[in-house]
């Protein structure tokens, strides 16, 4: 779930004393253009200035900021990196770099920069922690988000953004009771889209589909641009078997945030099931960009290779996955199929046996847990 952020670009108005008057005029013009919103001319002016003074950290950082404001995040990232190479302890640039990564959905990269910003500059710590928690939530790393946010709970309990992030993390981690406390805290200040989204998410996890539908539809009615609301509605509709409506909801989410992981993954899987393989690849690769290395997405991409006859590509992808996640039974099972189709029967037999063993172990563990929880049966009334 993505935290709705307004980020402030840090523009440096300070000029170097030793600058020549002509250069100073160019930089001043760039800043004025930037502040007035004339982004293209501002970019041009910053670049003109940097052609003369390539080592100016402030101009480089400001160019990154104006590029980010223009939605040219990849270019912005390059400028920030350039600036950090000259000033590797500049917390403000780390924060802005993190924001640029955040905006293109590279949550893991963003999180790393926010961590840096928080450690370098205490004045950015609160803002960085909220951003960091948002990244963790979008990466599904709810425990990390809880660990980051819980020390701030007493001081930020009136902060709706904090409550929303914290509630999302708790509910995502399955801590429904603690999540409910946060939802009540949000609701105590009146009905809100964010509270409805959290309620809907909680009910979805509890398989209360009707309740979840009511809350999610209400969340969207209150704020149709609320990040994550359409994605969650899509997940619910998928669980209800409403595939066409689910796909429409995921597409709405992607229209608001093209980097949303769950929506990209689900649209990719649905496209693969419909044998629309080029669409499937496009969306699954988008999902992978949002969560680099995600084993679930990589498995789906391997299945896509298998479905399209790319046996060798599927084999390589599955072998790599097994190298990192040897306990992923389904991957072993699919790799067995690939080996058999490549006429590598012995390898297929081996992978199949591993898949079966892992599955048996998983089920035995579940049986063990069950027997510990189960009550002895007595004479039961009919």
């Amino acid at each position, binding site marked *: 779930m993505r935290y709705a952020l307004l980020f402030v670009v840090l523009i440096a108005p300070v000029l170097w004393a030793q600058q020549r008057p002509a250069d100073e005029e160019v930089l001043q013009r760039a800043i004025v253009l930037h502040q007035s919103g004339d982004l293209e001319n501002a970019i041009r002016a910053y670049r003109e200035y940097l052609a003369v003074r390539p080592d100016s950290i402030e101009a480089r950082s400001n160019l990154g900021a104006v590029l980010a404001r223009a939605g040219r995040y990849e270019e912005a990232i390059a400028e920030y990196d350039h600036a950090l190479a000259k000033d590797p302890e500049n917390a403000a640039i780390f924060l802005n770099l993190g924001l640029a990564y955040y905006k293109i959905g590279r949550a893991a990269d963003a999180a790393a920069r926010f961590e840096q910003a928080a450690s370098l500059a205490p004045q950015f710590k609160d803002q960085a922690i909220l951003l960091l928690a948002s990244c963790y939530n979008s990466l599904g790393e709810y425990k990390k988000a809880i660990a980051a946010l819980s020390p701030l709970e007493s001081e930020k309990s009136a902060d709706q953004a904090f409550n929303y992030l914290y509630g999302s993390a708790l509910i995502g981690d399955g801590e429904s009771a603690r999540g409910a406390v946060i939802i009540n805290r949000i609701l105590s200040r009146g009905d809100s889209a964010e509270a409805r989204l959290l309620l809907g998410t909680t009910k979805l996890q509890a398989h209360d589909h009707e309740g979840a539908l009511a809350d999610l539809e209400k969340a969207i009615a209150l704020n149709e641009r609320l990040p994550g609301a359409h994605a969650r509605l899509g997940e619910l509709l998928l669980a209800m078997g409403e595939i066409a409506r689910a796909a429409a909801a995921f597409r709405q989410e992607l229209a608001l945030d093209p980097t949303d992981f769950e929506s990209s993954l689900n649209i990719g899987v649905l496209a693969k099931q419909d044998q629309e393989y080029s669409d499937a690849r496009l969306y699954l690769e988008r999902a992978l960009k949002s969560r680099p290395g995600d084993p679930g997405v990589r498995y789906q991409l391997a299945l896509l290779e298998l479905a399209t006859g790319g046996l060798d590509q599927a084999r390589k992808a599955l072998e790599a996955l097994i190298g990192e996640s040897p306990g992923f039974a389904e991957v072993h099972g699919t790799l067995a199929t690939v080996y058999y189709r490549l006429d590598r029967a012995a390898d*297929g037999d081996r992978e199949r046996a591993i898949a079966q063993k892992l599955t048996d172990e998983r089920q035995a563990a579940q049986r063990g847990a069950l027997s510990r929880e189960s009550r002895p049966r007595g004479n039961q009334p009919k």
Partner: protein
Amino acid sequence: MASLRPGPGVLVLFSLAAAISLLFLAGGSPSPIRFELKTIPFRLDHGEITARHVPATMAGGIATFDYNRDGRPDIFLTNGANLATLKKDQPKYRNRLFRNDGNGVFTDVTEQAGLVGSGFDDGVAVGDYDNDGYPDLFVAGVHHNTLYHNNGDGTFTDVSAKAGLNKPDTQFGPMWAITGAWVDVNNDGLLDLFVVNYLQWDYATEPLCEYKGIPDYCAPRSYKGLPNQLFLNKGDGTFEDVSEAWGIRAHVGKGMGVGMADYDLDGRPDFFVTNDASYNFLFHNTGAKFEEVAFQKGVALTEDGNFVSGMGLDFRDFDNDGYPDLAFVALAKQAFPLWRNMAGRDFKEVTSASGMRSLSMSMSGFGAGLYDFDNDGWKDLFVTRGDVLSRALPGTAVDQQNTVFRNLGASGRWEALTAEAGLDAAPPMRHRGLAFGDLDGDGRVDVVATALASPAEIWMNRSPGAGHWLDIALEGTKSNHDGIGARVEVTTKRGKQYNHMTTSVGYASSSHGPVHFGLGADDKAESVVIHWPSGIVQTLNDVAGDRVVAVKEAR
């Protein structure tokens, strides 16, 4: 209508419903499928008690078969027992045999037939194992299987002990069989028996599972699985357990259904076994042994690599390309998987591409059968629906109505018909078994379905404007008497279609009808080619439709 020019051994049995079939308008739009509900006095008593024991939710097998050879399919229904004792200690638990007397009259002849039963019975498989012309019954159950020999005089004899089919396993003890399949695996002219086993279960030690504090049936992961079994028919009324030698025993699963078809057209019957939340099995027959090739052929798991709760199935050609395809049902949120057979090389899942995923995603199914209900030349899919649990979890309906999925032909798409097909005439229930047969001889395939703690349903096919039809009733001479395993290819002006003789269809059920074909606007088949299990190929030309044609295997 062209005159019938029978080939060797062809006998026209009867010609009914021609008048109805003539209503079919050539070139008109495909006719919708409609059913009318009838009931028979049978209630499935499955032994459900407050603390749920899992066999209670798996009951409900049916057989449709003409036990007295009067030309009308009769109905046999299995029933439960006291689960604590596995005994039918009350009359309500009796199995039932209903004789079809015609005109919609079904008479309970259970007692005189000797088919009351004694234990908790689940599935049933029909096959004439001794080639005497009278179909026999194998009844699968919890820790107890029964083989009934049809004496040909309206009575049956329990020959389980002599046959050697009911011995406790040396490793697993008494096993729980869901169903069986009669197939001549070695093409020696004698039907062999494949038994599908489910879970290791014991009344005293079964875990008690609760959902929000309320007991309900445990998931399959709560139990260990079992291997299936293969018994070779020795021709003297006894059977030999060859499960190990034939490569079956090595594969432990949680079997729920079995379908038989020669998927690679090598002349030997193969098996597909659905497992409950585990890898499916595809047993490829090499002539002296089965090799399990589900992974190789891409049918071990569904396209997303996930386990589904595989239930009942059918293994027949639904796209008319001559290769048997796979359709089975599963629980809600899993969809009903469809696999197209790619010329015997492997299978391609078309669950989404066919529209079946969207149509079935919210449904839970138990039984599935591919029959052409509107006789348009394309096999449709009838599904008995209902959840495995007894109390609804949020987002899941336990009681459901049955659905027929209409095959929309060359488009590869399907259409779901529930109320549209009249299937809302019965209330939503936990439906289980289903079997097929033309109960009133009108050329339209009827359906029998069971539901837990509910009366059995007979769904009479009243599809208006159904097409012409042709039923091929096989009689093997060198092959097994039932002709099980024979492939039949019918050619009409509009093209070819394919089917094969099997009684293994649905869930825990068996349908011993003739091999059915819908001919659409064509009132005759230009040719009928039968590939017998013996290898003999028999061709009939210019076969008039709207009749049952009996074909005796040429020697």
